């Protein structure tokens, strides 16, 4: 039965579309994580630049965050990310007044002076990250724009509290939250920092691990919703072909029926990803010829990182299809995907914990950060696997009830309505 399902699924349009879109996406992104230009090389002493790193220096952070808030205040255009979506907030007069009060406390400049001068401020130097066409990021370092500086004697703790208050005034979801303030300042990496990163990539990741992580970071984006389309299509197939009754009266158990179909959809969804991972393993081996690499890295990362997302995506599609006999599950999966994708945009350099459906690690480096957060990632992946299995169990239960005629499916509902009409007409 499993092979039959697999064969039917493999020749279905959704599977072909899934494979094709994964291929297009892979082709469009692969030079961002695996190419000659992306090869991890040992840094040399005396290089012009080794890159940037988020600063932990309170002085730099305070100046950077204050610059940003001052600029946004002057323009009355604040960047926030509620639910991860970018949303520009404009404050009304009373709220702007409160913000001026906060700026006054932060800088020690009287509120009236801030309100009077802000209209004439001109910000030529901003704090921001610029992404070039090849995907590399550079940033403008925080500078004192000459407008406002942190007040004399202002402690970092008080600064954090005031910034938290500014965040609340803006409705939350800003970079002024205490835990995100480090995004406002960057330190220049030293040779020693760069060497330590290289050594981590060589010793912990054995090079291929770093590329495999980035491969998973990209591929999970599409693997979070594409399998649901395949699953829903497979789950609706019997209904489309009017074969439901024929299958339901067979002696096969509902759990087996559900698991077979679910297993086939998951396997089919994983085949293109595993093939691409295999191709990348060969390309990595060629790129790092002569180096010690981990040949199983892509396989391990794909199964540990992407598979739970695929399991969940399929199970969500399945349970909604069993519940409603419609493709409603697709809406649920796409809505969840959209929110999760936007939320992940703010954690590109490492977002693993909690209820993250698509973990992010959008950088080749940071093996030590990944290792430090491995427990969180593991817990997250296990949680999604458990939820997926629970949803499959629930789907089997619903199917069982439908077979016994106890579940009010869409078809049963329609039949009852039309029977009711017939009876009334009689």
């Amino acid at each position, binding site marked *: 039965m499993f092979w039959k399902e697999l064969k039917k699924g493999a020749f279905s349009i959704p599977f072909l579309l899934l494979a094709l*879109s994964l291929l297009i996406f892979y082709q469009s992104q692969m030079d961002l994580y695996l190419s000659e230009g992306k090869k991890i090389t040992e840094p040399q002493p005396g290089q012009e630049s080794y890159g940037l790193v988020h600063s932990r220096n309170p002085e730099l952070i305070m100046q950077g965050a204050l610059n940003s808030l001052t600029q946004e205040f002057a323009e009355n255009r604040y960047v926030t990310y509620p639910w991860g979506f970018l949303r520009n907030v*404009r404050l009304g007069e009373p709220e702007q007044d409160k913000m001026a009060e906060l700026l006054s406390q932060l800088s020690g400049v009287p509120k009236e002076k801030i309100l009077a001068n802000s209209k004439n401020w001109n910000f030529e130097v901003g704090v921001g990250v610029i992404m070039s066409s090849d995907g590399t990021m550079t940033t403008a370092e925080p500078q004192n724009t000459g407008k406002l500086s942190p007040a004399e004697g202002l402690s970092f703790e008080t600064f954090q509290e005031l910034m938290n208050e500014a965040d609340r005034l803006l409705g939350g979801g800003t970079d002024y939250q205490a835990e995100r303030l480090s995004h406002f300042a960057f330190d220049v990496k030293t040779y020693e920092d760069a060497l330590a990163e290289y050594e981590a990539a060589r010793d912990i990741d054995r090079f291929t691990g770093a590329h495999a992580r980035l491969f998973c970071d990209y591929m999970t984006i599409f693997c979070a919703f594409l399998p649901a*389309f395949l699953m829903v299509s497979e789950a609706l197939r019997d209904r489309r072909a*009017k074969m439901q009754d024929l299958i339901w009266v067979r002696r096969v158990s509902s759990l087996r029926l559900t698991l077979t179909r679910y297993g086939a959809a998951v396997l089919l969804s994983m085949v293109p990803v595993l093939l691409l991972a295999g191709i990348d393993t060969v390309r990595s081996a060629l790129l790092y010829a002569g180096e010690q690499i981990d040949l199983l890295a892509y396989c391990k990362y794909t199964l540990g990182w992407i598979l739970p997302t695929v399991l969940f995506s399929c199970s969500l599609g399945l349970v909604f299809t069993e519940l409603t006999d419609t*493709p409603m599950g697709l809406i649920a999966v796409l809505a969840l995907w959209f929110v999760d994708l936007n939320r992940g945009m703010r954690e590109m350099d490492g977002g693993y914990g909690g209820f993250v459906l698509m973990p992010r690690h959008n950088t080749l480096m940071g093996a030590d950060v990944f290792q430090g957060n491995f427990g969180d990632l593991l817990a997250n992946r296990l949680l999604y696997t458990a939820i997926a299995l629970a949803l499959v169990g629930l789907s089997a239960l619903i199917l069982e009830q439908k077979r016994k005629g106890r579940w009010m499916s869409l078809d049963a509902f329609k039949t009852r309505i039309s029977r009711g009409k017939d009876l009334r007409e009689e």
Partner: protein
Amino acid sequence: MTLSKRVFPVAKICVKNNLPPHLLLSLGLLTGAFLIMWPCYWERDDTLFFFLTFLPLTGILLLTPLFLPEQDRDTLDVIRMRATPLALIFSVRAVCGILFLLALPAGALLVLSLLHCEISSGLWSEAVSCSLFLGGLGALCYALWENLPAAYLVPVLYFILCNMTGRERMKEWGLEAFCIAPNGQDYIPGLRPALLVGGLLLLLAAILLRCRRKRNG
């Protein structure tokens, strides 16, 4: 029987029975988008981004399931027995879908203007062009494959690849139709009218294909 006597009953059934679930989903999508993004005192570019991110999706929801009622073989047999031609039924259904597709962006614009957002001229027509194209694409895929999830997948994928994966990486695949330049201009001049015409042609092709298949099948 006059044309109006043939058209109105079909339109009535369509509005009463076929469209409501899809319309509800579209309204739900827009309500969710408004609640999450809460547009208020927005500048032109922000409104444009919001509009062209969410409104095109209503086209997929409204037009892709154009032939859904005939998926049921019994319904198809009943419809085929009637004097009203299949092409007319599908066309009326498409027009009903398009009318709501025109109304939704207009309603969204009204709400945005009430929330004091700046609205650039031609925003409504841009949203209609995009949603019509995506809807037409979905309808054609449905006519081709008779598989609703696959039909939804094609316009969704097209939208995601165009809109969300970055112009730089997608232009070699010709997938920059929905990318919005920073100043609100199209990357490819004249693309939006082409999308509108393309959407109508796709819908027409879907209806013709479906009629031909159903007549033969």
